[in-house]
C-alpha cells in the first residue's frame, strides 16, 4: 500500500514538470502582454517597455522559463504583477475561502445526491425516478454562472433571505485566526459571525454544488440499480434477510464504490467551477483571483495557481484511489 502511494507520488514530479512547461508556454502565448493591462489607458509605449524590462519579459522565453523554475523549486512562486504581493501570500489568504465554499458545495451535493439517487433507484420507472432524472439533467445543463445569477436574483435580491455577495457582513466585527470564517466564528464563540458566514455560503454553495449533485444522483441511481440486481442480493433476499438490512449492508455499501470515485473527481471540478461562482457572488477566493489573473495576464499568479490546483487535483485522485482500496477488498487483493 505504502509502496503504491510512494510510486504515485514519485510519478507526480515529472507530471508537474511537464505541466509547468506547457503552462509556461501557453500563458506566454496569450495575445498582448501584462504591461498595458497594468498601466491602464495612460500608458505610454515607453512605460510599457519599461515594465517589460522590469519584469524580464523582454528576455528570451527559455531564459524566462529557467529563471521561473529555479525560483519555483525553492518555493518562490514570484509576485503578482497586479497586486505586487507574493503569489503564495495571495493564495494563502484566499484558499480557505474557496475550500470553505467547496466544502459546503460538496456537502450539499453528496448530502442530497446520494439519497436522491437512491430514492430514484428504489422507484425505478415511476414518477420519482423520472423526476430525479429530469432534475439531474437540468443540473448538468444549466451553466453554473446562470444558476448562480438566478439564485442570487431570487433569494438575495427579491426575497432578501440571503446576502448578495462577499463572505461576511462588513459591519460584523469578527476575529479571524484561520480564515475559515465559520470555524473562526465557532472558535471565538462569535455566533453571530459564524452564522453570517454560513448564510453567505448557502447560495454560492448551492450554485457550485448543483453539477456535482446531478452527477452524483445519476451515478448513485445507476450503481444502486446494478447492485440490487446482483446475485448476492438475490441470495440474501432468498435467505430471508430483512429488506432494511439488505439495503443498508448489501446494496448501499456496494453501490457506494463508484460514487466515491465520482465524488473525488468532482472536487477538482468544484475548484474550477469556483471561478464562476466566486465572480457572481464577489466571493474572495482563489477562483475570483484566478479570473482577474487571466484578465490582467498576471503570469506568476496564473502559473502558480494552476500548478497548485494540479497538485491538489493529483493528491485528491490519489486519496480516492487509496480510499477505494480500503472500501473494496477486491481492489486490495489485486
Amino acid at each position, binding site marked *: *500500500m505504502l509502496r503504491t502511494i510512494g510510486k504515485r507520488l514519485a510519478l507526480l514530479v515529472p507530471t508537474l514538470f511537464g505541466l509547468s512547461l506547457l503552462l509556461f508556454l501557453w500563458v506566454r502565448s496569450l*495575445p*498582448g*502582454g*501584462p*504591461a*498595458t*493591462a497594468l*498601466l*491602464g*489607458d*495612460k*500608458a*505610454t*509605449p*515607453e*512605460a*510599457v517597455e*519599461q*515594465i517589460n524590462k*522590469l*519584469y*524580464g519579459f523582454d528576455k528570451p522565453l527559455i531564459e524566462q522559463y529557467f529563471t521561473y523554475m529555479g525560483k519555483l523549486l525553492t518555493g518562490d512562486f*514570484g*509576485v503578482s504583477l497586479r*497586486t*505586487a*504581493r*507574493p503569489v503564495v501570500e*495571495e493564495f494563502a*489568504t484566499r484558499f480557505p475561502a474557496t475550500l470553505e465554499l467547496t466544502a459546503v458545495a460538496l456537502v450539499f451535493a453528496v448530502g442530497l445526491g446520494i439519497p436522491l439517487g437512491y430514492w430514484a433507484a428504489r422507484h425505478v420507472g415511476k414518477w420519482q425516478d423520472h423526476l430525479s432524472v429530469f432534475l439531474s439533467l437540468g443540473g448538468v445543463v444549466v451553466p453554473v454562472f446562470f444558476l448562480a445569477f438566478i439564485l*442570487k*436574483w431570487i433569494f*438575495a*435580491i427579491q426575497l*432578501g433571505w440571503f446576502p*448578495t*455577495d*462577499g*463572505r461576511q*457582513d*462588513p*459591519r460584523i466585527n469578527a476575529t479571524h485566526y484561520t480564515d475559515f470564517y465559520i470555524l473562526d466564528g465557532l472558535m471565538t464563540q462569535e*455566533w*453571530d459571525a*459564524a*452564522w*453570517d458566514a*454560513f448564510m453567505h455560503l448557502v447560495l454560492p454553495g448551492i450554485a457550485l454544488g448543483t453539477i456535482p449533485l446531478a452527477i452524483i444522483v445519476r451515478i448513485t441511481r445507476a450503481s444502486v440499480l446494478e447492485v440490487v440486481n446482483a446475485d448476492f442480493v438475490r441470495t440474501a433476499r432468498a435467505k430471508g434477510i430483512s429488506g432494511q438490512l439488505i439495503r443498508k449492508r448489501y446494496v448501499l455499501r456496494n453501490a457506494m464504490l463508484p460514487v466515491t470515485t465520482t465524488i473525488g473527481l468532482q472536487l477538482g471540478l468544484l475548484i474550477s467551477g469556483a471561478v464562476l461562482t466566486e*465572480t457572481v*457572488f*464577489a466571493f*474572495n477566493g482563489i477562483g*475570483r*483571483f484566478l479570473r*482577474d489573473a487571466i*484578465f*490582467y*495576464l498576471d503570469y506568476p499568479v496564473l502559473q502558480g495557481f494552476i500548478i497548485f490546483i494540479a497538485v491538489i487535483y493529483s493528491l485528491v485522485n490519489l486519496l480516492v484511489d487509496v480510499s477505494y482500496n*480500503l472500501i473494496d477488498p477486491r481492489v486490495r487483493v489485486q
Partner: protein
Amino acid sequence: MTTSGQTSRGGRLKRRGAALTATLAIGALALSACAESQREEGEAGGNDAAVDSTFIFAASADPASLDPAFASDGESFRVSRQIFEGLIGVEAGSADPEPLLAESWEQSDDGLSYTFQLKEGVMFHDGTEFNAEAVCANFDRWYNWEGVNQAKSVSYYYNSLFKGFADSPENAVYESCSADDELTATVNLTEPFAGFIAALSLPSFAMQSPTALEEFGADEVSGTAEAPVLSEYAMGNPVGTGPFEFVSWDSGQQIELTAYQDYWGEQGQVQDIIFRVIDDPTTRRQSLEAGDIDGYDLVAPADTAALEEKGFKIMARDPFTILYLGFNQEIEQLADLNVRQAIAHAIDKDALISQTLPEGTKAATQFIPDSVNGYAEDVAEYEYDPEKAKELLAEAGYEDGFTLDFNYPTGVSRPYMPTPEQVFSNISAQLEEVGITINPQPNKWSPDYLDRIQGGPDHGIHLLGWTGDYNDTDNFVGVHFGQPKADFGFENQELFDKLTEARGIADVEEQTPLYQEINADIMDFLPVVPLAHPAPSLGFSPRVESYPTSPVNDEVFNQIVLSE
C-alpha cells in the same frame, strides 16, 4: 496503518459526523435567534448618534498601494483621499486648487521658488507633528528615490511631473526644500512649472508622516527589480493627517478606516468607512439594491433610471473627461483634412449622447472641458450636417464613399465611455449614412486594444478618451498632441512647438491665451473629433442626503450627509 483500524475509525467518524451535523443544525437555529437579539440591542444602543455612522462604499478593485506616492489608480486614490491631505486641496465641486495644509503660498518672481505658509496645529495620526520639516521630508523622499522606485510603473506621477531624481538632477524639475521656520517651507524648482500648484493637489503628493515612513520602511520596495513587493508601509501602515485613519486591509475583500479623533477640521457624521471590493458592475448594483452597501461609483447609464425609480439616489460629477473619435492619419483617406471634416460633420453628437451616455454629459466642441484653463470660445465647430459631409467627401474624391476600419474596445467600462459597443454602433450607423462603409474592429480592452491603438499604425478611426488628473491643460492637450503618437500618426511640428512653449510658461495667466490659441488650432487641424464630456454617475442608498461630488474625484467622506 491498518485497514481495519481505518474502517472502524471511519465508522466512528461517521457517527460523530452525524451527531455534529445535528448539533450544528440545532445550534445554528439557536444562534440565529441570538444573533438577531444581539443586533437589536446593538442598534438600540447606537441610537444617540441618530444615524448609522458606518458608511459602506463598493470599490471596483483593491487599491494598488496604500502609499499614494506609489499609486496612480482611482481606487488607491479614493482610499488615500480619506487618510491623507496635501499642501494643496481642490475647491469643492471644481477642479481648481485651493489651500489645504498650506494656508497660503507665494511664488518668487522668477517662478522658481514657492514659499508655503502651513496650517497650525495639525497632527499626523501617529502623533507626529505636521510642520515645515515634514513637508521637506516628503519632497526629499520623492526626489531621492532610487532603483525600482524610479520606474514609471511604481512612481507614475512624480516621474511624469517632476521628471528626474537626485541621481539624474539634469532632468529634475525639483531642486530643494528648506524649512524656514516651524510653519514655513520653501520649495525650489530648477525650471518654471506652471502646473506645480495644481499638481500638488494630486493624492500622490499628499503629506505623509515622516516617522511612519521611516518606521515601516516605505521606500523599501523589497523583492528584486524584476518583482517589486510593496513595502510594509504601503501594505498596512499609511499615516496621514486626514479625517480618517487606517484600520485594516483584507486583500480582495475590504478596507476599513475609522474617524481620526484629533482631526483638525470638521469630522462629519461618518465614523467608519468600509470599502468593499466588488469588481462586477452588476453585483455592485445588486448589492446597493439589497441594502448591503451605501454607494458605488460609475453607475451604468442603463441602470440610472431604474435605480432612481426604486428610490436610490444618482449623483453626477461635473464632467472632467473627454470622449473622442481618433483619426489615424497613416491611413490615406484620413490624412485628407476634407475627409476628417466630413466625418466630423457626419456625427450627431446630441443623438449619440442621449442614446449612449449618462445624464449630465455635455457635447464637446474642443478637447478640454470648459472648467480647464485655456478653454476657447471661438473654435471651429463642426455641426451635424450629413449633406455637407457628403459634399466634403466628394471634394476629396470619395463621392462613392470608401471602407474604413473602426477600432473599438469591448468588455470595458471607462469613466468617459461606459458602453463602448453602443457608442461604436451609434457612430457607425451615422457614418454609413454619408456613404462610409465601416469595417468593425472590436478588441478586448485589456490587453489588446491599447496595444493596437498606441503600439503602432495598424488601426483606423478609434474610440478613446481621457479623464483629467488635475486642473492642467497640458494634462489634456499636451499629453495627446504634444509629440508624434502612434494613435494619430501625424507630425505637426508647429503644434508640438506651441505646446512645449505653453508648458514652459510659469504663470497661468500668461498661459491662458496661448492655450486658447492651441485649442483653436487643434480644431482646425482636427486630429480627433471631440465627442462629449461624459459625466460619471454615482449611486447611493436613500439615506445619503448629500455627497461631495468632484470632477477630479476629490471626495472626502467626512462631508457626506446621512439622514438615518
